[in-house]
């Protein structure tokens, strides 16, 4: 089945409104917003804007309906057992901090949490902070030379003290997809829970949390063709029911006395205050749109572009790919280092050609150190990426090397 990326591109206002070429290859940082998302948010804000779960007037009812409709859309996207397992947050980072706080409150000194050095800082720093607060032990799954999580090492690492394995579903640097089945098997053998940071993986199609067999899943709206300021923490119903709230405030309480309060069940227990209503509506629209896409054809399209990119990069002098140079079981995310050239400078020159790449440590400093670099340039593709984007990048890299060398 063929896939027409150019036609899809026309559905994104940012591409149709450019007066200069735009080759946007920074999707791992933020993807572009689909037109249906903007429309849904505009309709909501102009016809149904009100606070949710608080008023009985017509607008409040409509807003609550839209907000809970978005929650149901998230549940469908994740194949969750129910929308009550879906917590809206401010983003993946907020989701992971919520998880670290709430799960952390159930742990004792000496309990272990297992992470890896391939994590985005968002799935490392909250656990470090938890260790400082509670005295838990933070252990690390080793990485392969290609920077991938070495799941073969898990059985020996996961002890009876391990309470949680918190790993990325897919690397924001190498695009490597974690072998979740191996992680879940090792966790189950020790009675530990599994949390996945899905910030990167979620933008590449619906996720089936039940098939994965994990316990918690976090992702952001702005990486899924939706708005910023909204994200999701999904958790199994029985596990969420046993966790204490993170933030306190309106909307998450039952009865409030002068000294004590009771709390509502999940998910509202974890959504203190007025939630990001319009952003949640936008995320719901984005996930609904994603659910309508032909993902098998898109993955074939992205694999073809990935091979084109890898072949072109392989011809450039002094260029080293971080991670594997194949197209197997991975996301279309490619990071590279060019000897003697700093990624900041490289990406600055690429921008002159309308090519948008991210240069830096990608909030993954431990993984950068694993590869022996301070920073890297990263090209990350989306369904609307085209061969013209790849060719523009390769041509611009020639210019960058000539100018900066």
């Amino acid at each position, binding site marked *: 089945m063929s896939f027409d990326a150019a036609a899809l591109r026309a559905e994104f206002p940012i591409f149709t409104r450019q007066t200069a070429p735009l080759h946007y290859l920074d999707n791992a940082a933020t993807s572009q917003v689909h037109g249906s998302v903007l429309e849904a948010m505009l309709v909501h804000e102009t016809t149904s804007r009100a606070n949710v779960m608080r008023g009985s007037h017509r607008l409040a009812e409509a807003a609550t309906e839209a907000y809970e409709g978005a929650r149901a859309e998230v549940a469908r996207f994740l194949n969750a057992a129910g929308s009550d397992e879906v917590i809206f947050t401010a983003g993946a980072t907020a989701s992971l901090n919520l998880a670290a706080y709430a799960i952390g409150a159930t742990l004792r000194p000496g309990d272990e949490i297992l992470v890896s050095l391939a994590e985005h800082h968002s799935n490392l720093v909250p656990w470090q902070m938890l260790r400082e607060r509670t005295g838990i032990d933070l252990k690390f799954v080793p990485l392969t030379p290609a920077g991938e999580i070495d799941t073969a090492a898990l059985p020996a690492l996961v002890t009876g003290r391990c309470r949680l394995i918190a790993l990325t579903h897919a690397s924001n640097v190498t695009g490597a997809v974690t072998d979740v089945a191996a992680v879940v098997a090792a966790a189950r053998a020790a009675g530990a829970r599994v949390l996945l940071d899905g910030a990167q993986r979620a933008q590449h199609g619906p996720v089936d949390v039940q098939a994965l067999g994990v316990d918690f899943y976090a992702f952001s709206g702005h990486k899924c063709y939706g708005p910023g300021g909204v994200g999701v923490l999904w958790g199994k119903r029985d596990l969420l029911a046993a966790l204490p709230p993170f933030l306190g405030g309106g909307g998450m309480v039952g009865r409030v006395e002068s000294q004590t309060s009771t709390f509502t069940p999940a998910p509202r227990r974890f959504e203190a205050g007025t939630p990001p209503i319009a952003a949640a509506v936008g995320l719901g629209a984005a996930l609904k749109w994603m659910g309508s896409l032909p993902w098998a054809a898109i993955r074939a399209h992205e694999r073809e572009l990935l091979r084109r990119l890898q072949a072109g990069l392989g011809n450039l002098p002094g260029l080293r790919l971080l991670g594997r140079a194949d197209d197997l079981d991975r996301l279309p995310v490619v990071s590279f280092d060019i000897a003697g050239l700093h990624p*900041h*400078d490289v990406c600055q*020159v690429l921008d002159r050609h309308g090519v948008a790449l991210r240069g830096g*440590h990608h909030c993954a*400093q431990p993984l950068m150190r694993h590869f022996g670099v*301070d*920073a890297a340039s990263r090209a990350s593709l989306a369904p609307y990426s085209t061969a013209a984007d790849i060719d523009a990048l390769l041509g611009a890299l020639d210019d960058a090397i000539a100018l*900066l060398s």
Partner: protein
Amino acid sequence: MTEEIYQQAIKELAKAAHGAGRLHAPDASVQLDNPLCGDRIALDLRIEDGRIAAIGHETRGCLLCRAAASLIGYAAPGLDGAQLSAVHAEIAALLRGELAAPALWPDFQVFTPVRTHRSRHGCILLPFQALESALVARSAAAERCVSGH
């Protein structure tokens, strides 16, 4: 005036790497990171009569950061803390577009094209921040010596 960031003068300034290398027995040392991109500078100072007598630095960063460190390497020795603060303030103002041209350090003119690239200002300012931090650290240490703590 060129708007080219990567003009020859900046590339030569970075390549010259004035002041590169660590000092033996410095009076103050600091290490600073740019949280956005991972640029890192380790900077040593030797102070005599309240003025910068020598600077040594190891700078791992982009071309702009290395050029700024190199500029500091040859232009900062001889300055005292107040003079350096004035230079730092002038450079920050120039990057913000509040000044047309640098008066204290005319050679800073080469960075003028970076004004319109706000995300790169931190690359240039990192060596200046390191230098000011080192001076503050040195002053604090000297104060502790005087007060006998």
